[in-house]
């Protein structure tokens, strides 16, 4: 069953049509890769989905609920988690506190003035960190972490809200090859465990073809191909886009 249904999404910046009539859907248990050359409109697409940008037209529905026009925090509460291309964490807090923050927000405890925050949802946060392999670094400040580790923290933060959909913008950028496959294997496992649906962008084709269950290809704002990895790999238009030969 499709959870996220995107129909005819459009967005331009000035005269540039960054996203032109993109439609796709995402079902529970899927790991859907959104690929395309630089400037194809992948990040714009993500920003349209999680509410950072407002589409000029088109609809985005999550389990039938229209998301267009809602601010990011409302979309998040409806069950769309996100990791960023350039990691964004709370640098003045420890790794565990970063995850605790998300739990506090989820359970609407942000306005507490009395109970110390370090004690709130400590075990839950620790468990999640163990799951993504950051348990041992839970007490380190986020500001000093290696980039690959930050990506894991972001994943734990995204999972803390128990989302239905996870948007991951280049989840393995800046990681070593071994780390990349490890993180994607973890993501795939989480999808099975938690009944998630993941939409991710990625430049590393090993990651894409190794872990995506389905692939959609974006070029100059338009979807040019969609299907299982083998089919997309064989698609002539995709090859043309990536290899530069005339289609």
């Amino acid at each position, binding site marked *: 069953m499709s959870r996220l249904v995107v129909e005819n999404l459009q967005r331009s910046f000035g005269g540039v049509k960054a996203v032109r009539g993109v439609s796709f859907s995402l079902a529970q248990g899927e790991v859907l890769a959104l690929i395309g050359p630089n400037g194809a409109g992948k990040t714009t697409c993500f920003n349209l989905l*999680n509410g950072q940008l407002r589409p000029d037209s088109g609809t985005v529905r999550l389990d039938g609920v229209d998301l267009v026009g809602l*601010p*990011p*925090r409302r979309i*998040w*509460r409806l069950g769309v988690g*996100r990791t*960023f291309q350039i990691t*964004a*964490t*709370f*640098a*003045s*807090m*420890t790794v565990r*506190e970063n995850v*605790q*923050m*998300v739990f*506090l*927000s*989820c359970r609407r*405890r*942000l*306005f*507490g*003035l*009395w*109970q*110390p*925050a*370090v004690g*709130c949802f400590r075990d839950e946060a620790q468990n999640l960190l163990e799951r993504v392999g950051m348990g041992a670094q839970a007490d380190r*400040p986020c*500001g000093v972490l290696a980039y690959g580790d930050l990506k894991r923290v972001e994943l734990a*933060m995204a999972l803390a*809200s128990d989302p239905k959909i996870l948007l991951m913008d280049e989840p393995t950028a800046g990681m070593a090859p071994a780390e990349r496959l490890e993180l994607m294997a973890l993501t795939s496992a989480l999808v099975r465990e938690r009944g998630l649906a993941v939409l991710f962008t990625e430049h590393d084709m090993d990651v894409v073809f190794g872990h995506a269950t389905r692939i959609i290809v974006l070029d100059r704002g338009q979807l040019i191909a969609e299907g299982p990895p083998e089919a997309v790999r064989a698609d002539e238009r995709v090859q043309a886009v990536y290899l530069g030969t005339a289609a």
Partner: protein
Amino acid sequence: MSFYLVQFLSGLAAAATLFLVSSGLTIVFGVTRIVNFAHGSFYMLGAYLGWSLIERWGTTPLGFWGGVALASLAVGALGALMEVGLLRRLYRSPELFQLLATFGVVLVIQDAASYAWGSEDLLGRRAPGLKGSVDILDQPFPLYDLVLIALGPVVLGLLWLLFNRTRWGTLVRAATQDREMAAALGVDPAKLFTGVLFLGSALAGLGGALQVPREAVNLHMDMSIVVEAFVVVVVGGMGSLTGAFVASLLIGQLQAFGILVFPQITLVLVFLFMAVVLVIRPYGLLGRKEEAPPTAASPGPPLVLATGLVRWVPALLLLLLALVPLVAGDYALIVLTEVVILALMAASLHLLIGLGGLVSFGHAAYFGLGAYGSALLVKHLAAPMPLALAAAPVLAGVGALIAGWFCVRRSGLYFAMLTLAFAQIAWSVAFQWYGFTGGDNGILGVWPPDWAAGKAAYYLLTLALAGGTLFLLRRAAFAPFGYTLRAGRDSALRAEAVGIDVRRHQWYAFALAGSAAGLAGGLYAFSKGSVFPTLMAVPMSVDALVMVLMGGIQTLSGPVVGAALFHLLETEVMSLTEWWRLVLGLVIIVLVLAFPKGVAGFVRDLWMRRKEA
């Protein structure tokens, strides 16, 4: 009709001076990102130096204009010296520390000018050849002002040529847009910054020297002009020269005609104007959206809840302070009472700066609202002290809730300037509404009842109330509320993406901080027995800022330490020498250079290092 024309021309002449000063400020800010409080002091120095040179040689046109130029160049050299000797060492520090350093320079220049020229107003010689006036539609208008009117566009044109037609100007613009990229391309930013400070300061000095024939030179010129220049820069859009020019013209006219149309609210008109502009145009008239607005501090290391014995230090300190009346005399108790009140004031500001990354230039407004709230209740309704004290945080909190709603919609320096605007509005109400607030006569006779009238009794009451509030603020900082505030500061993007309404949180924090400052204000009113508009004035806001920064923004004990240090320094030095500003300014400069993380931050780092070793 002719009267209005002359009024219009006077407005243009005032705008010219304003433009000279604010163009310098906007250039310095655009390139170095430094909020240069000393810019007004350079203007004042320009006026004093100009006065001396004109007294000496100003009988001939060459001597007069030569003197003006020389004064301007000398002030420019001083600005360059400040960059080399002070600011250059602070480029890696949080941006607010540069602001603190320039404030130290303000104090030093104040006393230096007072030492060199005395505190009397100095009337300067008129410009030779331009002493007379011309009749414009039968109204006399000073010739000199006509020259000034022409000077504004000329300077704008020259600056435009400098920045668009010379290699140096191109490099400066490159560095403004992307400092790191310019450095990577082999441009030495340090040299560029020295040049920019020279240029900006020279413009301020020129503006000052040109004022000599128009108004008396005095020691108050620095603060009034720097606040106005900030308003111009913000209204015009930060870093935009044309914006500064347009804003100068608008504000010049606003002042010229405002006095005719709204004589009761002249003081506040400019700030109301700025507030309206910022609400409508978030980045000023010609400003562009900032990629990275100036921040309070790079996010520091995590706050750590003290454990073990250290946990009891605040309680122990409170106990010790409570025992002080057993040994101390009245004078010491008065000073200590003030320290405790200011500690609460500084801690409330720290909630905004340290946790929220929100730098307020107008926190005194809420201190003053609390003080005036209490005093007015006592004066007009004969309210008893407990009621008046209870009302202080409520009134200030409501005031902060209203002002905060507007302020948190902007960030960085624009936020700071909006808070300043609201503070100035509150101040001018207290200053100009004689019937209700007593104007600059203040409100007298706000004394505690008999049971709290003794110095020891009032000290203990203050300690209990302020100590209790400090404890609550501390709890809030470690509770989810404080964490959420920090989350919004660390990464607003991430915070919004995990369901946090950053603006709403900042708004509540603003109200909470205002409320705590209001209680401090109420306590202050009863400790002094009187309130005056100065409680809400710019220097009070700046003092609070200095306390927070001196103590260090990365620890919760910082503001308390800073308030104690600042107030004791001020009262002690003041009793020893009349040059207390000089000493205080030098102390601030030394502290900034020696402890770029603030005193409390330094001590904590030392402690941490020892623990690790």
